[in-house]
């Protein structure tokens, strides 16, 4: 069974169309975002091979990109992927307390996934570029700003 289907390749073609015909590798990162989302948030070797073949680049190039960029996951992740910013501005506004409260609430440490497969807490190294409304976290890429520990937990409880 192959992972790429017609519906996906139509979307991939839209990305390829943005770059000169002899620069198909340029579409790689946008396409990896697309297929990762389609595969419940992570990439597999097989998917990387198929994408490379479709884009007509060596498989190693797809592997290299997937391992370099922190938004690409090479292991399964929870249904909800939580990134709490702990960088300098957020740290100054209490990011550590948010991390502590969330770890307590979810019963996992940063970098882990809950046993029921629902929540992953990523180790976020970067600043999320929303510093003046910190502390900040993203859940599946959606921003939640001006957090307090209580608010962060309520947001988690509100997820369906």
């Amino acid at each position, binding site marked *: 069974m192959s992972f790429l289907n017609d519906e996906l390749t139509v979307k991939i073609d839209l990305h390829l169309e943005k770059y000169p015909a002899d620069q198909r*590798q340029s579409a790689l990162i946008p396409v990896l975002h697309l297929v990762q989302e389609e595969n419940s948030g992570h990439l597999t070797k097989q998917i990387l091979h198929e994408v490379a073949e479709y884009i007509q680049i060596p498989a190693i190039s797809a592997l290299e990109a997937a391992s370099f960029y922190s938004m690409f996951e090479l292991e399964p992740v929870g249904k909800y992927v939580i990134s709490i910013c702990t960088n*300098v501005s957020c740290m100054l506004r209490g990011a550590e307390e948010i991390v502590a409260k969330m770890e307590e609430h979810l019963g996992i440490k940063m970098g882990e996934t809950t046993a029921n497969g629902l929540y992953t807490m990523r180790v976020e190294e970067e*600043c999320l570029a929303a510093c003046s409304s910190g502390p900040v976290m993203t859940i599946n890429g959606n921003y939640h700003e001006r957090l307090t520990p209580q608010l962060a937990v309520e947001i988690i409880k509100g997820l369906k």
Partner: protein
Amino acid sequence: MANQICFTTLKFGQPWSLENYENIGGYQALRKIVEEKLTPEQVIETVIQSGLRGRGGAGFPTGRKWSFINREDGKTHYLVCNSDESEPGTCKDRDILRFNPHAVIEGMIIAGYAIGAQHGYNYMRGEFHGDPLHRFEDALQEAKDKGYLGENILGSDISFRIDTHLGAGAYVCGEESALLESLEGKQGRPRFKPPFPAQKGLFGCPTIINNTESLASVPAIIRNGAQWFNDLGVNGNPGEKIFSVSGQVEKPGNFEVPMGIEFSKLLEMSGGVTKGRKLKAIIPGGSSTSVLPAAKLDGMKMDYESIAEHGSALGSGAVIVIDDSACMVKLLRRIVRFYFKESCGQCTPCREGVGWIYRILGRILESDATLEDIDLLESVATNIKGRTVCAFGEAAATPVISFLTHFREEFEAKVDAKVSTAEQKVEA
């Protein structure tokens, strides 16, 4: 005055709509170029006269950068907008993209015209896949429908195409040559320079890379003239600029205000330092710029020269405010952890040096450091500077050196406290 350049539409309910952008004079600059048949040279000259400097961190004069492109070389040229926004403390480009995407688009079209490019990419960090990307893409469609973008813009022989491209989580991709690698689908490792992108950039073609805010500033300059831009600033510093004030203030936020306003005024606009606390220090231009203790801020104005005279840099305009509750050793360790994890690893001084600094800071905070370790920190950081392929090395070393210069006693106190508890344990 405020909100004269990039935040002009902020007063409207839907600041991102084309209608509201047109309400404040949007696309008039493009119309002026077409109707008055301004040449690329004239456009570049106006931008040079305006004194606009790059808002991405290095502050390079925008018009001069554009003039490096040889329009007559017969090659394909590219324009790239750097919306990677990843310098810690910086959060202005995200708001420009969300609230005034058309200013970025109009700025890109004008820059493309000036450098003889017919194709531009807006490279956004992966985290911007929500509102910033969607608002920008919707705006592209609106601009195309109105004839501002595409073939034969407003009936002229100017054509321009813009595509978006998402990154995927790597600070170093904000560095312009790493960004180009990333845009080519590769790992984001900075290139050796020369050749500079203006000679050999995207797909091997001459390329100009500008920050989102730089490009979004261009339409207002062309529309109102270089003199108008000059008059906006105070103390002889042209224009307005967005300062992202974050950290320990009552009302953090993005403020588009005249260049050269007093730091004390900006602090006041952000509600002042946390209630009941005293100002301890600021990092004035993003985490890669030198920290400045409160005592050194007297009379500092928010412009390139004044901040440099006070011992730091304007950088991206990200002002991180630190009050007297903060531990400078912990803060520096968090900053250094970031550089340690984000180094692309291709130069030994950066890869090994930053890791070494990170481990020493860990020792100071958690176990058995000695006073010599503090000297070691300084010498390792000093040895990174100037020995790397890209400015990341410098960016990582600068906070270390400045924290030690201004707050050395806090580092020493941590070491002393450890030594004395260890001695007590031995005696007991």
